[in-house]
């Protein structure tokens, strides 16, 4: 009896031991569907696609402020009068940092380890561009302590001035990396995984120079001549134009036909029809009118030849175009086919922009003829770029009408600086439709002379004027105690002066 009992207990215990040891708990916790390492190629595609998508989405907010767009319904409506909820900036800020900058940082490190300078160079240009977009809208941002994940959970904010210094350094370094001969390095160079330039180093170098010119000119309020000279120095090596030299080489990302690869403006209009349309100021200019005219005013010749590419008719098939007055919901044209087709691009910077930078810089430097030449080149390039497909059939887009338009709208006086600056910046405002760069131009130059939104006064925007900056996203305010506390929409940025 006693032996039997002991046997049973022994048997039980040994069974338990066998059951315990046979369970291989650590192996169970390995995710079979995800990796802990990633090649630079997949990281690069991911960072580029996200960056283009994010800045596209973001420009719906910034360019509502400067009246390219108008918010009419749902979450878009408060944007129209600057009563924006700071949580709306979460998505863009967060995804630029976590889905692009973090990946670009890994590419840079892996690129050095793997002796792949082109990956390093491309990552540096995109890093510079991403920080540029953030700082031009938010001002001081985390940079030197950013992207350090587990080690530094609450990065400090760097001054905009130091971020600008970093951007320039990053672009210079990138040019060095991309200038290395391909035969000298071991790593496989980027190719189709670079969904912008397919690994073409020369195109990247041109883009880097264009961006250097852009950020140089941003400081025009400090000393316009210095800023202009630096911009020209970036655009030209001696007499050779070294920035982006034609529409085909623009720094842009073309989206795809599949729904989850499609253009952000297309998605906006598809998923939330009629929430976002066009603003009065922009459509008035397309209609040949002044920004302050009533949106219902009949068009005045010459009408912008790009109108059918940039906007849809309102009412449908009426031949008419109109924008909504900021702060008042109303009928409006929608984003037209050039930007709002599923495969439309989001443009980072372009030949058109390079020529506008040159036009403004030459004007500042008193080189009137060169300024006019650059302006004509810019507007002509813009025509060539966007007037495609059905928009080319528009009666306002004929070569004769284009010439007429250039003569009427894009011709400088040669002796009235203020008027000529207004002409250049107004043309840039039209040509760079959807691009947040025009928000920078507005703050630098005050052109075009936009009328602030009806009911634009709020606790975050007490003077009711067009905001000078964006509030930090709610998520950063909550999670990072280093986030500056300020009255977010009125204080001016470092380069914005007073």
């Amino acid at each position, binding site marked *: 009896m006693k032996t039997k009992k002991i046997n049973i207990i022994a048997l039980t215990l040994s069974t338990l031991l066998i059951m315990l040891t046979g369970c291989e708990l650590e192996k169970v916790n390995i995710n079979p569907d995800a990796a802990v390492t990633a090649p630079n190629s997949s990281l690069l595609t991911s960072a580029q696609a996200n960056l283009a998508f994010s800045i596209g989405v973001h420009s719906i907010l910034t360019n509502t402020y400067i009246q390219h767009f108008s918010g009419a319904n749902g979450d878009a409506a408060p944007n129209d009068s600057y009563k924006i909820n700071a949580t709306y900036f979460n998505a863009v*800020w967060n995804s630029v940092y976590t889905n692009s900058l973090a990946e670009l940082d890994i590419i840079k490190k892996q690129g050095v380890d793997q002796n792949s300078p082109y990956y390093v160079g491309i990552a540096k240009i995109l890093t510079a561009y991403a920080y540029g977009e953030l700082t031009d809208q938010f001002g001081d941002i985390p940079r030197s302590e950013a992207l350090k994940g587990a080690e530094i959970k609450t990065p400090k904010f760097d001054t905009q001035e130091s971020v600008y210094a970093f951007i320039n350094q990053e672009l210079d370094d990138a040019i060095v990396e991309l200038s290395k001969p391909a035969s000298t390095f071991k790593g496989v160079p980027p190719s189709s995984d670079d969904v912008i330039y397919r690994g073409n180093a020369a195109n990247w170098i041109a883009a880097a120079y264009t961006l250097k010119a852009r950020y140089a000119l941003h400081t025009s309020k400090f000393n316009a001549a210095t800023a202009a000279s630096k911009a020209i120095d970036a655009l030209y090596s001696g007499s050779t134009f070294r920035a982006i030299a034609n529409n085909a080489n623009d720094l842009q990302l073309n989206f795809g036909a599949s*729904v*989850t690869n499609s253009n952000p403006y297309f998605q906006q209009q598809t998923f939330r029809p009629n929430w976002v349309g066009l603003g009065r100021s922009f459509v008035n200019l397309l209609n040949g009118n002044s920004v302050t005219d009533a949106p219902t005013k009949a068009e005045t010749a010459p009408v912008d030849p790009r109108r059918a590419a940039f906007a849809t008719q309102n009412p449908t098939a009426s031949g008419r175009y109109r924008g909504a007055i900021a702060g008042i919901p109303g009928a409006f044209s929608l984003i037209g086919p050039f930007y709002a087709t599923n495969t439309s691009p989001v443009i980072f910077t372009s030949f058109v922009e390079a020529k506008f930078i040159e036009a403004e810089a030459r004007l500042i430097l008193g080189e009137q003829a060169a300024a006019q030449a650059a302006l004509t080149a810019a507007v002509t390039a813009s025509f060539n770029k966007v007037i495609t497909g059905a928009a080319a059939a528009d009666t306002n887009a004929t070569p004769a009408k284009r010439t007429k338009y250039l003569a009427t709208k894009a011709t400088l006086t040669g002796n009235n600086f203020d008027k000529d600056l207004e002409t250049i910046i107004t043309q840039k405002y039209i040509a760079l439709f959807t691009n947040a760069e025009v928000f920078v131009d507005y703050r630098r130059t005050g052109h075009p002379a936009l009328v602030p939104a009806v009911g634009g006064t709020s606790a975050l925007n007490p003077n009711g004027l067009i905001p000078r900056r964006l509030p930090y996203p709610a998520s950063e305010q909550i999670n990072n105690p280093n986030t500056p506390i300020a009255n977010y929409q009125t204080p001016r940025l470092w380069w914005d002066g007073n």
Partner: protein
Amino acid sequence: MKKKYYKFKKYALFAMLLYTAFYGYSQTTESTLKGKLIDETTQAPLVGATVYIKGTKIAVQTDENGAFELKTVKEFPFTLSVNYVGYQNKEIEIYEEDQNIEFKVRSRLALNEVVVTAIGLESERKSITYSLTEIKGKDIIQAREPNITTALSGKIAGVQVQNSGGSPGGSSDVRIRGNTSVLASNAPLYVLDGVPIDNSIQDILPISNSLSLATPSNRAIDINQDDIETMTVLKGPAAAALYGIRASNGAIVITTKRGSSVTNKKLTINLNTSLSVEEPNRRFQPRQTKFSNGINGNYVAPGLAGSDENWGASLDTLTYSNTPSSFYKGGQIVGKSNPNSNGVPIESFDNLKNFFVNGITQNHNISVASKVDKAGYYLSAGKLYQTGIVPTTDFYRNTFRFNGDYDVTDKLKVQAGVNFINSGANNRALMGGFNTNVLRALYNSPPNFDITNGLSDPANNPDSYLLPPTASRPWGDSRSYANGIGWDSPYWSLNQNPQKDNVDRWIGFAQTDYKILPWLTATFRAGLDNYRDIRKGGFGRGTSGVAAGVVNDINYVRKDINTDFILQANKDLSPDFNLNVIVGHNYYDSYRYQSNVRGDGLVVNRLYSVNNASTVQAFDQTINRRLVAVYGNAQIGYRKYAFLNITGRNEWSSTLPVGSNSFFYPSIGGTFVFSEAFKLENNWFSSGKIRGTFAQVGKDASPYALETYYSNLSSGGWIQSSVQGPFNGQSTLNYGSNGTNTLGNLKLKPETVTTYEIGGEVKFFKNRLGIDAVYYEIHSKDQIIPVAIPASSGSSNIVSNTGEVSNKGIELAVTATPVQIKDFSWDVTGIYYANRSKVEALAPGLNNIALEGAFVNSSAVVGQPFGVLYGVDYKRNDAGKYLIDDNKFLADGTTPNSNYGYYIVDPSPKALADPNPLFNASLRNALTYKWITLSFLLDTRYGFAIHNAPKLQAIFNGVAKETEDRGTTGVLDGVRASDGATNDIEVVKSQAFYRGTFGVPGYAVERDLHWLKLRDISLTFALPSNWLSPLKISNASLTLSARNIILSTNYTGSDPDLGTRTGLSNGLGNDFWTTPNTKSYGAALNVTF
């Protein structure tokens, strides 16, 4: 000896029968029935109880030995009933051979009751040291809720049920004693026949989440109520220490019927059928009926900008015209003065009323049970079919169960059961915030637009929602007031966007018990829960927001294996001391896999197949988790009135790092039955006990939380848009797990939940009045939370051990039998419970985690109740009154202030209101007169807040009733900001004013809410056996019932007893476009042969 006696009796009876037969039925034959009434648990005789023959007036009282003797002329078989205070009513059938019976009844309220506790063991109720409530299967059936989770509503103190609205098959969610975990699941564990089963609510993975928003089911819906013998709710970790981690939020232990417990006959057949009709139990959000769609006071024709708003013209200024319209039968709508007007005033339509239909629920069950010698079996088949109040929606469930038990020898007992379920829906209504939401589409349809298009069965007639094909839209256009730019017709969504799902599920268990020694038993139990859930969600071409059409295929498989090996010893150490020891080993492995495919761009419209899609994306996910544990439980009993219970469990979890993956947690509890110890029982005091428990339980992490993984790019914009990899054919990898940029953490350790509980039970007047009271505290700390870190760090979250949540509460249950006379009894059960939760701490520097929400978040905020509603509101004074801007001018003193006389926005988000109730209470009354029983349950929730998101949107879009005063002048309710005086500034209630409230979502938070409802009422006729016996029927009953027919509330929306669409998050108090709850009327018939 005894056996012989029976035999003799049998012969005597046989002789008597012969005698009867010989002389014929004309002569009355008297038989004498002798028996004894005893307590099933204690075996003590029951004195002074009434034993009677059902359906007759023949009755007798038991004597001082519990014996009775009954003389009757009634034919066999008949039903003998007993009625005794404090005991359950019991009926047995008397056959010829049953002439000297031991009639065992179970105490209803007494402490001696036997209850099923953890790991399927039975314990005497008085020895239990923690809170536990048992519900009988018939009480579950009484609720007439297809979902057993919903059926718990109002039945148990401390158990709050949140359902997701009145969609057929909609999910329901239970919280026992509040939420303890910020982000992990707070749902209790469901245990079926000793085997944990899955009750998850499975939503669809990111690949299609933005579109597929049908309300999914919680998987406990697969359990057929008719199979349930008992359901025991073990509250809190104390009760569930033996089930381990998964029961840290309590456990719902279900035991299904066994042949040997259901019957003692060779064959018992039970047929049960019910039919009920459902309709919305309360009106929808009130909407305005005076203005057309449009904007700025102008009607806007379908498809033009502004037509999706309801800020149009007053209906009486509009007429039809001679221009035909496919949207309006009377012709295009124009203003009265329009030259095109035909002068016919436009009609007004009540779309809300026209839309809902009667839902029908049918439930049919058949079961066969048998007990022969040492073997018993139970076999059942059930069929449930439910159609919804939203046309075309439904839910079905077909169940089969076989349970067998066999005493192989005196020492060896085996039992096994298998359950097959096929459930799902042919169509579920789309919910959520997108243009495909059926109810939003309905609610926003303006009174000038007839969604039915004048048709009698619009849901099934394409002419109500589909316009003829055009060159640009060959698939046909959406017939809605906004024609594709806003919400589609609700009928479009129901027909063009079908959402199907189908589950095949097997649940089985097998158990062997072997009595090694008289005091030592070994038990081995193995269980399997395995199902596949196949879903298909289609979106037809031309759907608003999904122009090219989409198909989502979801294949989800889950397999849970659970084994227990248990040794149980029970020995009297001395006449005074009893020792009961359990030692066990548990193994649990859970495997989940889903493979989802999304096809975009349907080539042939309405062919919802990925073969028919222009582009296809796929996604898969595996989640594996394994737990191994050894556990023990020792109970020392002293003289059957003092008990000490100690448990310990050591768990090994696969989800924690090696080194921290083994953790131990204990519990200790004591019970003292003072009434027995001090012999206090007398005529008015029946029994009393006090008890106390301290318990801990550890919790592990989610699988794969240790490493940082790369995942496919998935990045969202600010309105619904997103970019996902692969991108244009190139692979994308993004740093951070699951597309959430979450960093893993190799230093995780288990969470800890600690509970203290003290309670007591007292019974009076021969157990006719019982009071059970509990006070508890639950503290959970070191929670494993993906803590948000600033995005500038490069990641969004890092999984960390942090945060502490506390819950404190009281629970009170009173049971009483105020009246108990021969033919009439009245039973009352009242419960009351109140829980106070508090988020004590989150991570350092982190004070707020959003749990769920639209505009206003239900959040975990340090220092606030769990799930507090958090967001932006207008400024209020301490009394909660709005402050009114009484500055006529801006700061410069000259510019007029456009906000003069209006509310003042407070731009910084704040904790606004507590969605947790001050208390819940319910009252069940059951009145039995002879064979008729009337039972009803009153249920109430008091003192909570809801964010009424539909109202916020409805105000913005000019749909809400309160916007009907648009354009009028009035004084807003509030006080002047400068001096606190009552506001008297007249302002225009303009479109701009109402639209402005949208940016201030706190405006739609409603506070101090309450509801009181008649949750169920039923009238049961148990037909007298003298009617039935000629038909060879032993029992038959007819029940007429109604559910939720009375609702009283101060909420301005629909039924405030609403959860969320899915119940997936821990958020509370957000009303967001769910299907209205239903009320129902039905009848059920139950026949036993």
